[in-house]
């Protein structure tokens, strides 16, 4: 049986059912095929090797203990070899994360480690390292009525010189304390993994499923001061930010995507408003949200 999905701007045909994704009802040919089968034991020409992965210019081999081995090739094929008794949720979590990250690199598409919402028909992107508050910020705005278009990975494509954000899938991952802070009752939401107190929050009703132009990119960071600060960046800092905030950027070294990554980042740095929002360690979501909203107004003076 083949399941058909649409995610990150790609049509997927998969032997593995991935209920998190939006179904593709067209008869168009797939961009990516996902199959269950044998994966290579190693990539002999790999120069970039981590503890769990090997990378060549067009391949990723990732082996996660007790979960699965994944082989991603040419931006077109993903082969999964599940470990005995592994949990399907776990298999899908790392497929939709690191494997798609590598696949997007192989497709030479810039993908930021980011969540995104829609503001007046344009994408507002929140990027930052893990734990910076991307999902919490995006979901807080979603709960105020803004649509959400992706959580954790935000691919970006230039269309006729305009940067567009591509949609992910209608699910968000949030820690239980973040849901407490958002006053969301999570008891009916499944855990992302059995042994992790992180919940899979469905965002079906308020999901944006089309690619839309980017309005702004905010990098979320923490500092030791007491106030929330908004910082403008010059073009070289914007470039560095995009390069460092690229999803699984450490996969790019020694791959064919490397020069494209440089080019994609520098093009985007010139085309999009990119700023940093730096907040104290303590909970200060209301201040962060009002800083964002104020700034979004200033980006659109006509609509104030």
């Amino acid at each position: 049986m083949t399941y058909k999905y649409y995610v990150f701007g790609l049509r997927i045909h998969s032997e593995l059912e991935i209920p998190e994704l939006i179904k593709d009802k067209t008869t168009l040919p797939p961009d990516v095929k996902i199959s269950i089968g044998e994966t290579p034991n190693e990539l002999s020409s790999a120069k970039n090797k981590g503890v769990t992965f090997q990378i060549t210019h067009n391949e990723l081999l990732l082996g996660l203990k007790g979960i699965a081995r994944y082989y991603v090739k040419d931006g077109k094929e993903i082969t999964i070899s599940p470990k005995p008794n592994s949990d399907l949720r776990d298999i899908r979590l790392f497929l939709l994360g690191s494997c798609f990250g590598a696949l997007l690199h192989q497709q030479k598409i810039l993908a930021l480690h980011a969540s995104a919402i829609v503001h007046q028909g344009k994408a507002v992107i929140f990027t930052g390292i893990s734990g910076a508050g991307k999902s919490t910020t995006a979901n807080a705005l979603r709960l105020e009525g803004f649509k959400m278009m992706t959580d954790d990975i935000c691919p970006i494509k230039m269309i006729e010189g305009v940067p567009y954000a591509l949609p992910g899938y209608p699910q968000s991952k949030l820690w239980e304390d973040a849901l407490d802070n958002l006053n969301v009752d999570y008891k009916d939401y499944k855990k992302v993994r059995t042994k992790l107190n992180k919940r899979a929050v469905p965002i079906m009703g308020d999901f944006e499923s089309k690619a839309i132009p980017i309005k702004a990119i905010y990098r979320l960071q923490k500092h030791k001061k007491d106030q929330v600060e908004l910082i403008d960046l010059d073009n070289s800092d914007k470039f560095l930010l995009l390069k460092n905030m690229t999803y699984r950027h450490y996969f790019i070294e020694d791959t064919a995507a490397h020069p494209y990554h440089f080019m994609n980042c520098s093009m985007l740095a010139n085309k999009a408003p990119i700023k940093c929002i730096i907040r104290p360690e303590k909970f200060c979501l209301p201040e962060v949200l009002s800083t964002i909203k104020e700034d979004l107004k200033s980006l659109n003076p006509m609509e104030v």
Partner: protein
Amino acid sequence: MTKKKHDGNIIWLASYPKSGNTWLRIFFNNLLSNKSEPININELNETDLGSSGRIGFDSLVGVDSADLTQREIDFYLPKVHKHYSRSLTENKFVKTHDALTQNDVGEWIIPKEATYKAIYLIRNPLDVCVSFAHHSGFENFDLAIKHLASEEALLGYSYKSQMNQLHQYLGSWSGHVKSWLKFPSEKLLVVRFEDLKLSPQKTFSKIVKHLNLKSSQELITQAIDRSKISKLQKMEDEQGFNEKLPNSERFFRKGKIGSWRDELTAEQAEKIINNHKEMMIKFNYLDLQGNLKV
């Protein structure tokens, strides 16, 4: 720094928290700096930042550590340390508060194969307790006493939220000390915080010698002077310190020997002594009759 001659290239700066680890890091940063002035406390060499950093771990494991369970993180940590060690072309300092433990498959979290040398810093638990209470911002000595006695104590762990750092298994103060005594003795030097304070030249020189660092008595004297607590406090007053916890008033507090005497009640002190008698005797904080020596 010493050129690569061995498999292991990591120099572990290990300790239970609040035992002088940051001071030691600042000393090395000063000793190995070519600058004509003291190093800035907010610009410490980043590779020193520790064994618990998520970014380095994630980039070697290929997934987000926030999506992994504690057991999985413990499974990958020894491999991450060995991989990092192999990638180095010279020895690097890595700070750790981890007790020396093994993961589910029997591998040491701090593997000896990844190690060039290790310095284990130990401090009188009575002073550690006081410093720990202030550092956490709760100022609750009874809670700190319990923490120092808990075999399950972890740093950087919360079951329902993501912490900035990876979890580190501490265990009790005594258990922490005992665990590190199992490290291969040719690689390990145990140093008392009190000896660094009372005989800095002699004790720092011993450390420098253990690590085979090229240095001189003059440079060691200069680095000790540049790392004086009064200077660190002044720098923290002027510009803050980015490793201070949000709840605590300041990071570089007193750094004194015996400040517990002004803060703990006799009952509190007795509790700590009872909990940690064996290791306190072993490291000369108590005599065999149970009398305090510091």
